[in-house]
């Protein structure tokens, strides 16, 4: 073992935040799959942020219906890159703005679901006993509803609005997250460092949030990506079923539904929204897979 050092060794400085971030990014590079996924997700995020700058038209203004991709708008001379829909709105612009929708509601809903699920899961896994019984029962009951049955009922009863959809997603996702966090907590609470914290007299809150939760972040981050993908699909499907956000605001699923009847003649109206959704979810799934590979290797 190393011999004792002199007392006058100068203290090294902590690595700066930039260096640590660069290292994290470099870590991601180890998984090509993850890189591709991250790239797709970032591209969509950028598109959503820069929507007003990059979208050629206003998504809701009806200009010229039934235009095929590549057609030119006679008045402004701009190209309808992906064509227009049956009432004349530019599809590309609608897709970009639709992405905004998804990338705002999705992450918010997922984040809130995580907040709820994490608290429930930590409590159930750490305290066990009554806490666990009740929380697990409650989450089992919610989970026993097939997810879309739940959505259909909630939304048809309470109406379709952004808030309702987010609440419905939180309600449906939190139990699943709780299960995962509970499993991780049950495993981690047996570690010696948790026992060390307990024998120090640390409060349960400290132990749950400082000792246990940070060490569960690996599987949770992977799950978060997957879940965000699933939530994206859910938002799209709800739109498709007519239970999404009310028109005319663009909604990928809604776009497919509205123009479905015209598909034989004008397939572009539904193909591009489908591609949009699939690509975003693909990106999230690949990113999740890449992160999982990396965390296993760690």
């Amino acid at each position, binding site marked *: *073992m190393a011999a004792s*050092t002199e007392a006058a060794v100068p203290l090294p400085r902590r690595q700066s935040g930039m260096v640590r971030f660069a290292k994290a990014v470099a870590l991601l590079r180890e998984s090509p799959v993850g890189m591709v996924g991250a790239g797709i997700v970032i591209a969509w995020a950028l598109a959503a942020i820069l929507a007003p700058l990059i979208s050629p038209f206003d998504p809701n203004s009806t200009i010229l219906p039934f235009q095929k991709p590549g057609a030119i708008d006679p008045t402004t001379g701009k190209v309808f890159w992906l064509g227009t829909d049956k009432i004349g709105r530019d599809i590309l612009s609608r897709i970009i703005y639709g992405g905004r929708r998804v990338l705002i509601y999705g992450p918010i809903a997922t984040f809130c679901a995580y907040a709820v699920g994490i608290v429930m899961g930590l409590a159930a896994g750490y305290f066990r006993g009554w806490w666990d019984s009740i929380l697990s029962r409650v989450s089992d009951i919610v989970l026993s509803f097939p997810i879309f049955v739940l959505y259909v009922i909630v939304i048809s009863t309470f109406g379709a609005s952004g808030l309702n959809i987010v609440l419905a997603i939180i309600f449906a996702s939190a139990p699943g997250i709780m299960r995962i966090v509970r499993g991780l907590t049950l495993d981690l609470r047996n570690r*010696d*460092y948790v026992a*060390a914290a307990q024998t*120090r007299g640390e409060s349960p809150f400290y132990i749950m949030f400082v*000792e246990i939760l*940070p*060490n569960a972040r690996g599987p949770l981050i992977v799950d978060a990506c997957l879940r965000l993908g699933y939530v994206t699909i859910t938002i799209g499907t709800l739109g498709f079923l007519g239970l999404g956000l009310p028109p005319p605001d663009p909604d990928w699923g809604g776009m497919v539904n509205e123009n479905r009847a015209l598909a034989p003649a004008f397939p572009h109206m539904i193909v591009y929204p489908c591609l949009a959704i699939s690509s975003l979810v693909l990106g999230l799934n690949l990113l999740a897979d890449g992160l999982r590979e990396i965390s296993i290797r760690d």
Partner: protein
Amino acid sequence: MPDDARTPVLEIENLCISYFTRAGEIPAVVDFNLTVHAGESVGLVGESGCGKSTVAMAIMRYLGSNGGIVGGSIKFKGRDITHLSDEELRKMRGSEVAMIYQEPMAALNPSLTIGAQLMEVPLIHEGVSEQEAYDRSRQMLSDVNLPDADRVMAAYPHQISGGQQQRVVIAMALLSKPALLLLDEPTTALDVTVEAGIIELIAEIAQKFGTAQVFISHNLGLVRETCDRICVMYSGEAVETGTIGDVFTKMRHPYTRGLFGAIPLPSANKNDRPLVAIPGQLPLPHQRPEGCNFGPRCEYFQDGVCGPQAIAMRDVPGEPRPHQSRCARFEQIDWDAPLGAGQVNEPIEPGEPVLVVDGMRKYYELYDRSVKAMLSGEGVKYVKANETLSFDARKAEIVAIVGESGCGKSTFAKVLMGLETATEGTITFNGDEIESTEVQQRPREQVASLQMVFQNPNDTLNPSMTVGGQISRVIRKFGVESDPDKVHDRVMRLLDMVKLPRDFYFRRPRQLSGGQKQRVGVARAFAGNPAMVIADEPVSALDVSVQAAVTELLMEIQREHGTTLLFISHDLSVVRYLADRIVVMYLGQIMEQGTTEEVFSPPYHPYTEALLSAVPIADTSVDKRKIVLEGNLPSVVNPPVGCPFHTRCPRKLGAICEAERPPVLVDSDTHRIACHIPLESLQAVEPVFFSVAENGSPAGPAAGSATTGSAAGE
């Protein structure tokens, strides 16, 4: 090829194995040579990373997708097996070369019955009928001393105990009468008394079946008991080979000598002969030095002689049997010079009792909610984890609590620390009664005054926090300091105390080795100036040379601060070395307690006697009587009425042991034994350990008379 009796079963020449990773080629084993003849048993000894398991896997040709033999040859019965096809390999494995593994539970398929797994061997390799396969398997189970063979054949692995599982693995390996048996740390995962039975079985195998054996271990004592020859490995190379007698008494490599200096021997005492740790650290495979691998840690290193050229194995001249060493300077080193600084410590006088445990009981309730139980009124069963414990510990004393799994030592630690509360009885710590106060209700100073060092170095630190962060938290929580600069200062001084470099403050646990993590654990425990520290098997999971360092560190700190140390362990050699007093527990009860000398010499409690006999001793000048216990540890849920040990006791008197709790015999002020056998009879028993004369014949009290119980089943 004719199976010449003189052809060695295994002949490894200049073997080089490397792993191919993203970082490039990493040499795992370099220039390795080994020869094993039929009926011979060779021990392969070394610490983690030395390559001993890699060699075994190479013999089996199972190196994984990223490992490969890059040089040399392995000949099995004269045939080169380094280039066999997959099908030829498959035929060889299990029938001619068989392996026994470290963790028997993991090595058996949980979804197949034992019978099915055993029968596969003759069915695949010899094409016999199912009936014959069944009969042979059953016969083999009896040969390895497993009682009730039919039941075991139909059972699943989780339904039998660890020792029985290992016997099954051994049976499975022997079924097709292999010529070579590879044993990879076969007893590391087993309890001490169970280990003794398995070791005895392994030693018999060579005679009964004439197999050649390669016994891989990190424990020199075990190797001495089972092997004829030994090969010591360090960092991928063999550094010394020879017969047990030669290498153990006339070692010719500084590493071998360092290993012996780092293990506690029965003749050793912490004050007269402190353990000497090997300085420095094991090099990582891709950072091996040029020249002698051991050079950076060797006090005899001489530039030019010991490096930078590679060192080869050379014969030690003048020995009747082959003895080789990879030391370039073995002729020049004075092998009789004492190791280390020859430091002698003053024994410390213990002070007032710091901890007094009186009649402490901890029962867990087990609710049996089956209908049958509720009808018969036995809905609640008790797990008697601790049953009437009474002992005390004084200031600056080291008290060891010894026992195997299920003896209740962890439960006791939990009650002490406040993670559980006692069911009955009292525990007085520094004058306060703490048996019913949970840790959250205890005053801060009391919590800081009673801390713990944990067993598993990989789990003892929070992986997400820096070392400095974790220690600071403890300091602040205990209110030792609150000013950030003073806290920082104190952390640094604690790091100095455990001999870690100060820049470890910013490191995260995954950047530390096992020994370093354990040192941080020690620093953390001492952060609040505790009056008493409980060390729960603090070194069991560490390498031998690291164990010595951490053990010495713990003792040094204890001496300096006058802390009382409660040392929980199953390893009697370490306990003999460092404890002042010993408490022996079995199934929740104290069987014997006394000073170290008293416990290690007669009168013994029969359990203590068996426990002592099971300790592997690496000192060739000491031998021991063999006592092997039969049966398994009984379940803690249904402890036997009367004396808990009566189901396995070789000295059982009879009905009285089954019916009544044994009385506590008082041998001296400090020595107590709980047994029905009268004290005089116990005092007349011969000592377990005795010294042997130079030529190997016993010189001490009576020649080794084996006192076995009836046919050992465990």
